[in-house]
């Protein structure tokens, strides 16, 4: 319970009232679910053979969705690695002592944080070809995700580095270490541990955002589902549409829930070890080009 100070421990009458309220609420929720199922059933969407196609290897559907999942994870993996590396570089650049490094790096970070991720992807995919650079959907999607997330991650890294006690930094110099040594030997190892939860959470957001590939027709889960729908519609009419979309959506939600659980686990571990984790503003975790402006 988050704020038990907000209410007294309930007496018998309040508990009885709460029970009645819960019962009415439960009936309402069940009624809504029932209504949805009834409508779906009325439209024949619940027929078992319509759902069977999702698990029947002969239809090719499980394989196609599996390949789409692999393609989704490919984009996410490549983008995660590149965005983390570039984000680290940008964070160090923004903390540089030299103005000619600090100012342009800050400009790059602020620029990519300020515009929607989809606009970056569109720019790479639709605008660059006019200048003779033709990118595949894979490159455009990955590129957009890298450019946007490196800026967000740079700010996370910077917050982590700045959160280290100043004494660490001064002691490093006191021992005669160089600037680069202080950064790599003293600050980054400590900062990484503190940032880990936020970092993992941001990588979950990146995974969520691979779904934008749908809009530029990269064959990730949603676009693959759409492709399958169009194929089956040409054969059997509008028969498997709903099932395929639900399957693609559920796979997305499932992998995100799993990764979120990993994020929470790292946060617990970090906090348990007595170090305080850096926390992110909720907006930074919104995805879709979200993040503070």
């Amino acid at each position, binding site marked *: *319970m*988050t*704020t038990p*100070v*907000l*209410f*007294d421990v*309930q007496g018998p009458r309040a508990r009885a009232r*709460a029970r009645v*309220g*819960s019962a009415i*609420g*439960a009936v309402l929720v069940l009624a809504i679910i029932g*209504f*949805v199922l009834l*409508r*779906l059933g009325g*439209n024949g*969407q619940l027929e078992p053979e319509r759902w069977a196609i999702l698990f029947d290897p002969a239809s090719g559907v499980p394989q196609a969705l599996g390949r789409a999942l692999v393609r989704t994870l490919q984009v996410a993996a490549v983008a995660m690695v590149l965005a983390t590396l570039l984000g680290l570089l940008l964070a160090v650049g923004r903390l540089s002592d030299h103005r000619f490094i600090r100012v342009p790096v800050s400009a790059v970070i602020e620029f990519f944080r*300020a*515009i*929607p991720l*989809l*606009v970056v992807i*569109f*720019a790479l995919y*639709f*605008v660059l070809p*006019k200048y003779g650079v033709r990118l595949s959907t894979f490159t455009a999607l990955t590129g957009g995700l890298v450019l946007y997330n490196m800026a967000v991650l740079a700010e996370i890294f910077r917050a982590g580095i700045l959160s280290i006690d100043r004494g660490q930094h001064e002691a490093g110099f006191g021992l005669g270490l160089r600037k680069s040594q202080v950064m790599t030997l003293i600050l980054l190892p400590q900062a990484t541990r503190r940032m880990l939860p936020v970092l993992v959470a941001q990588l979950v957001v990146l995974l*969520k*955002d*691979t*779904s*934008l590939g*749908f*809009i530029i027709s990269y064959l990730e889960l*949603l676009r693959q589902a759409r492709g399958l729908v169009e194929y089956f519609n040409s054969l059997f009419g509008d028969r498997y*549409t*709903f099932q395929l*979309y*639900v399957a*693609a*959506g559920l796979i*997305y939600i499932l992998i*995100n*829930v799993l990764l*979120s659980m990993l994020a929470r686990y790292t946060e617990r571990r970090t906090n348990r070890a007595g170090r305080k984790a850096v926390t992110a*503003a*909720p*907006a*930074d*975790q*919104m*995805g*879709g*080009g*979200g*993040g*503070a*402006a």
Partner: protein
Amino acid sequence: MQFLIDNFDLFWDAFLTTLSLSLLACLVALVLGTVLAAMRVSPIAPLRGLATFYVETFRNTPLTVVFFFMIFGLPQIDFVIDFFTGAVLSVGLYTAAFVCEALRSGINSVSPGQAEAARALGLTFGQSLREVVLPQAFRTVVPPLGNVLIAMVKNTSIAAGFSVSELSSLLPRLVNASAGDLTAILVGVVVGYMLITLPSALAVHRIERRVAILR
């Protein structure tokens, strides 16, 4: 530049679409988010569970998937809504989960003495939330809430993939129609977003300074 002037009407319409989409979604998100936050701290366990379920589900669902269910899923239960309404609902319902989380962190940051004092005065849960805790919570969450809403403005761009002719959708449409002046189109779109986000950021900053409470 000439291109922007020639197509000003197009950009203006798209800008207004993005603006109205943002404002309506903002309304949905704020109202629903506040209700969800109240549910998450309420004494009734099933309400807490329901709100937690909502927040966890929407936080782990890509916004594109929410759009998908709204546009392609709802017709399956015989609700047909137009693309714009679908976009407002998708963005609004999605953002409500984040508004709820921001508000909840604000409620948790109100010192326990305030709630205890409210209870000692005999206020009920609803009264202490309405009269004592939420007014203070709203003040402390102005910056994070502002960030959530500004992020939401950028998230409305996803509606471009679902037949809403808002700002981002101009890129694929105009790029194919006009050979030159691509930079102008890009600049026009980016400026359109900044016309909404920058004043909002400024407003958030102003409100923050005005309502800030020192602890």
